[in-house]
Structures are given as C-alpha cells and as structure tokens.
C-alpha cells in the first residue's frame, strides 16, 4: 500500500474518474484500480467502500505523519493494551487516595515491605494520576478523534455519491453473487424486481438496466457514534479537574453543631446521630458469644443550611437559611443540588460543649447563681450575684511544662481548665484567682482545691459547682460524612448513553446493498453487507424466487471470509 502511495501511481479509472491516492476501488464504478487486483478472482476488500482514508497521502509532511500515527487502528490497539496493563499495575497495592490519613512515604514500606517501597518509588501508588497514565488516556482520546475523522468523511462521501451502474467485475467479486439469463426485457425486469426489493425495506435506485438497493445505512455510523460518546465521556472525566466541578472530602460533624463545609457556601448541622447494633441472636453463629459488637444501622439526622449573607467575612456571623433535611444512612445520602453527603464513619466519644456551674459559698452553701461557660470560644466576663468573674486563661488540655507553668498539651478539649479572677464582697480588693476544671476527673487529678489554695495563699471561700448532669451540655457523638460534588457526572452519563446508542446501531442492524445489471439478457447481481451474510443471501434468494428464478441460497455464496 505504501509503495503504491509513494510510486505516484496513475489513479485514473477507465470510467474517467480521477481517484485520490490510496483508493482501492474506483470511487465511481467500483472497478479495482490495481492491475494485479483486476486479474484476481478473489472477493473484493470492501472496507470504506475502497475509498482512500484521509491519512493516505502522496507526500506526508510532519503534521501528516502525526496524523497518520494517531489514525492507525494498530497503534490504538497497542495504546489500549498498554492502558490495560498500566491499570493492572495500579491494583497491586491500594492507591494513596483510598486512605484518609497516611504518609505514603512511610506507609507502603511499613505495610508491604520492600515491594511496597519499590511500588511507592515507582509512583505506582498513584498510578491513575501519573503523567504516563494520563498521557495514554489523552493519546487514546486523540486516536478516537483522528481515527473517526480519517474514516468517517471518506465513508460518508462514498455512501452519498454512489453510482448505480457498477463495473461488472465489482459485482462478480462481491461475496454474494448471482449470474444467469433473464427472460424479460432488461428495463422491465429491473422495474419488476425493484417492486419486490422495495417490499423488503430497501431504498431502490434504478438506471436503465442497472439497479442499486440499499437499507439500514445508518448502522454504518454506529462505531463513530460510539467514538463520539467515548470522547464526551473522556472530556467529562477531564473536566472534573476544573474548580467547582468535583469535590470529595471527609468532614467531622459533632452532634448539635452547625459546621461549615469547606470550599462551599453550605453549612451542615448534625441534629442527632444514632447507631443500632445487632442483637446477640441476629449475629451469625460464628460471632455469637464472642462479645462482637456490630453496627446494624447508623444514621445522621442532618439539616443543610445555605449561607445567604456575610459568607466570606470571618469578622461577621454568616446568615444561614435551612434548605434541606435528610436522615443520612449508608447508601442513602443527602442530595441537594448536586451536593451529596454520604454516611462514612462515626465516633461515640462524648465531647463536652458547655457547662452551667453555680457560684457557691463554701461555708454556708449559699448559691449565688449560675452562668453558661462554653468550652470553645468562651466569654471573657461573667456576673454572678454580687460577684464578677473575669476569665483570664483557658487551657484545652491542661498540663504543666518543664518549668511548672500551666500549658495546653494538645488543641483538643481533653482536659479543659479555666482560670478566673473573681472579685466581690468578702474577697481581697485585687480579687482571687480561681482554677476551674469542669470535668470531675480532672478536678481530682490536678487537685483543683490545692492549686487554688496555693495561688491565693489560703483556701478560697467560693467554689464553682455544676449541680447535676442537667447543667452539662455534651455532644454525644461525632459523625463523619463524605461530602461529594460531581457536576461532570451528567456528562459522563450522556457519553455512556451515546456509546450505548452507537452499540445498538452497530449491533442490531446491518447495512445491506444489492447491485444488479443486465447485459444482453444476462443478469449479474452482487450484494454486500457488513455482517449476517446468511440473512442477505436468504433475502436475495427470496427476491429472485419472486422473479421466477429458483436459486439455492448457498449457491449465492462466492466465498471469502464470512463474519
């Protein structure tokens, strides 16, 4: 083929049509262009109706060469095989993005040993984000576009300007051929035959002694429709990289708190989180009596708020509007305008949110009143009865450093401690310093009374006391939700639907064509289909029977590779 392209062959057919380089069968009459081919009796190569593909050019320049590379089906198949092999590599060990909190530089070595270390070093721990994998996908995309253009335009041209009268050799070298004498006058025979062929759903064109019948041409576009679908699919996946189109994050929502969902204008409140466990009887036999606790159902009653004002101003409180409410369960996410919240995990450790202690006279037991003390972002000044309390310091996780100074050990409120300056009647004018540990365990562990006595050079006549659990506000649990936005998804579905349409077009219909000509009372009939040869032979035998020509279906077979 290449030889012929380079050799500047004369591509003019005897019918007078000038064919482009690379043409196999004359575009007009269908006569084979190569002399060698003309002498043969083999079945014709009917691919693209013998048209030259766009990439077949006499003098390929640089751009043509790139074009030719991508237009090659062989190259496309190699690229698909390479992509498959690459995808397989990515499944050897779990990918980095399947973990929430790991340091991949140590995780793979620790978990999988040397193999894991090599795996990480080769960059296979993020195979699907690696440059070579994305490059392969891009090249397959390029190949899809170029392959399609390279073939669909010549094919379209070939099928729209078909000549009715074809060269005799074109007919006799089809896979389905019939030759024999007819009794009627040629024009009359063609007219009668066309009636019967039309009844079979063919569109019939006649010209004197010749006839062309064709049906289901659209099925030829099936593969190209599939390609368009795949291109839309790939572009949609690519578009997920654009800001705002794709998000996938895990956020913790403590019960009873409104929390901002990062990078959105939404806030979500975990109204209540509940978890149900399997009872001992419901467990499978193997698990019974082994103290296994398996959750049956976990559910977050969630309310979604949208920020309507002061959203990006951290100095002001945002104005929120409730927009959706949903009981989020596993496989039943909240879905609001494409923002989805999936139940992911939970933590049943209660977190102290606020306490309502009373200021009490130690000796008389007199209660001067209560105040609300928030653990997070507490107020600085409180007024209780005749006393004023000023919050001087706050420690989330109380501890002492090497110099014996109070510090907070972690940012988490594990052991919250508050230092107040209390002023009022029966107290020194400069007030007293008072350490307060809201949790009873911390109070004892850090010896609250001893610290306070030491700081003030004697016992303090007042104390803060939470009277009963009614004055303690706890967040009983924390739910973890997987927040997802995938706005490219509809396009992925559209792409997939188009692919399906293309598959249906290509699979369930076949493009069938029948050519015939009558020369001196002799009928020559050739037929072509892209598949189901049995079907077309049967159809032609039936048509010929109507024309009083008894033909055995099998005798129509002219050999060749049947598919």
């Amino acid at each position: 083929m290449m030889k012929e392209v380079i050799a500047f062959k004369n591509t003019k057919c005897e019918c007078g049509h000038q064919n482009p380089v690379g043409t196999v069968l004359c575009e007009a009459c269908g006569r084979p262009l190569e002399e060698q081919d003309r002498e043969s009796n083999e079945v014709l190569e009917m691919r693209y109706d013998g048209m030259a593909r766009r990439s077949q050019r006499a003098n390929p320049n640089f751009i043509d060469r790139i074009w030719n590379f991508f237009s090659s089906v062989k190259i496309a198949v190699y690229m698909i095989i390479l992509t498959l092999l690459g995808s397989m590599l990515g499944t050897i060990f779990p990918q980095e993005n399947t973990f929430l909190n790991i340091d991949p530089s140590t995780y793979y070595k620790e978990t999988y040993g040397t193999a894991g270390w090599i795996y990480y070093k080769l960059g296979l721990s993020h195979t699907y984000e690696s440059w070579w994998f994305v490059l392969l996908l891009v090249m397959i995309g390029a190949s899809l576009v170029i392959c399609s253009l390279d073939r669909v335009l010549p094919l379209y041209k070939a099928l729209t300007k078909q000549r009715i009268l074809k060269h005799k050799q074109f007919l006799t070298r089809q896979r389905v051929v019939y030759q024999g004498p007819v009794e009627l006058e040629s024009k009359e025979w063609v007219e009668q035959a066309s009636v019967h062929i039309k009844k079979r759903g063919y569109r019939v064109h006649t010209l004197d002694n010749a006839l062309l019948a064709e049906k289901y041409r659209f099925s030829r576009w099936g593969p190209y429709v599939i390609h368009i679908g795949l291109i839309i699919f790939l572009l949609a996946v690519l578009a997920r990289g654009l800001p705002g189109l794709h998000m996938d994050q895990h956020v913790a929502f403590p019960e009873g708190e409104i929390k901002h969902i990062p990078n959105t204008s939404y806030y979500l409140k975990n109204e209540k989180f509940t978890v149900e466990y399997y009872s001992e009887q419901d467990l499978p036999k193997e698990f019974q009596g082994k103290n296994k606790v398996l959750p049956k159902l976990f559910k977050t009653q969630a309310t979604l708020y949208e920020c309507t004002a002061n959203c990006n101003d951290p100095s002001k409180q945002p104005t929120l509007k409730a927009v959706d409410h949903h009981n989020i369960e596993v496989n039943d996410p909240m879905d609001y305008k494409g923002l989805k919240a999936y139940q992911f995990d939970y933590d049943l450790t209660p977190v102290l949110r606020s306490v309502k202690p009373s200021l009490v006279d130690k000796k008389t037991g007199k209660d001067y009143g209560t105040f609300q003390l928030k653990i997070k972002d507490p107020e600085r000044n409180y007024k209780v009865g005749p006393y004023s309390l000023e919050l001087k310091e706050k420690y989330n996780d109380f501890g002492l450093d090497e110099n014996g100074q109070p510090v907070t050990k972690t940012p988490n409120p594990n052991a919250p401690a508050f230092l107040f300056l209390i002023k009022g009647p029966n107290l020194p004018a400069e007030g007293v310093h008072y350490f307060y540990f809201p949790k009873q365990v911390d109070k004892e562990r850090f010896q609250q009374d001893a610290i306070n006595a030491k700081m003030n050079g004697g016992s303090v006549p007042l104390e803060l006391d939470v009277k009963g659990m009614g004055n303690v506000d706890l967040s009983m649990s924390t739910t973890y939700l997987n927040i997802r936005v995938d706005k490219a998804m509809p396009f992925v579905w559209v792409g997939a639907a188009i692919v399906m349409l293309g598959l249906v077009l290509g699979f369930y219909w076949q493009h069938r064509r029948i050519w015939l000509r009558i020369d001196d009372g002799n009928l020559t009939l050739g037929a072509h289909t892209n598949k189901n040869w049995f079907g077309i032979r049967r159809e032609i035998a039936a048509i010929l029977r109507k024309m009083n020509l008894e033909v055995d279906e099998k005798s129509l077979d002219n050999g060749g590779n049947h598919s």
Partner: protein
Amino acid sequence: MGKSRKKVQIIILLLIVILGGYAITTQVSGSNGKPTEGSKAPNFDLLGLDGKVHTLDEYKGKALVVNFWGTWCEPCVKEMPALQAQYDKWKDKDVVIVGINAGEDKMAVENFVKQVHVSFPVMLDPEKDAIQSYGISPLPTTFFVSPNGKINKIHLGQLDLQTLDQQIEELVNS
C-alpha cells in the same frame, strides 16, 4: 479543499495538545491540591487579632513569611522570638511575617501573643480553612512567599534565627 483540510488537521492537533497538556498538568501537579514549592500560594480570608479581615492579596508585592502555629506546639512557641526578631529587622524593607494560628480560641491566642511579646500580625483560623488549603500536617510549618505570590520555600519544623534570616534574604533577592 487541501488547504482547509490542513487547517482542520492543525486545529484538531492543537486542541488535543492543549487539552492533553491541561489534563496532564492538573493531574500531576494537583496531587491532593497541596501547594508545593514553586506553585502559587493559596489565598486566605482570615480574621486577625486586630479585628480586621486579612487576605493574601493585601501582601501582594511584598515578600511574605507565613508561619502556621499553635500554642500547644512546643517548637512553635520556641521559634516565636526568632520570628519576632526577624519581623523587627525586615519590617521596613517590604517583608511581612504573619502567623496563622491553627484553630484555637481567640482568647488563648491573645493571651499567648501578649505573653511572648509578639507584635507581627497574627490571624485566627477557627475552621482550619487555611490549614487545609495550605495542606499543613505537622506544626510549625513556614511558607516563604515571594512578592509575585509564588511559594519560594516550605520549611517544616522549628526555625532558628539564622536559617530564618537566610531564607528571608533569599526571598528578598529572588
């Protein structure tokens, strides 16, 4: 026909190169969206201890040192005097040092700042938005951002006076 066909070929190949280049760069550089040395510093929108909202744009045209810290983190506390010293040294030369606190209460931060005599701008990040967009995991982490908004260097862990001075010097000269 020949000419327009060539044009179509070139346009299609160019589109493929642009889209493909875009796909590869976003996939490869966008590993978890964490900023790296040489990438653009992410914007922030944070309330400062001065009660005003500060953004990254405010410091455009100036060399910027962004220090992420917490009062519970010992190395953060230890490097505070070095940061303060460098702030005093460079403040007239278009170099700004800002501290972003990792999600603590305003009061705790205020008390701490007073206690260690910090006068450079300190901002609060209660929702840990900046912590997330800068991809901070260990504290302290310090970003050196050049006047054009690009990250020049990311330093993990405690900084001493000398390396800090060197880094700023390098930043100013970059």
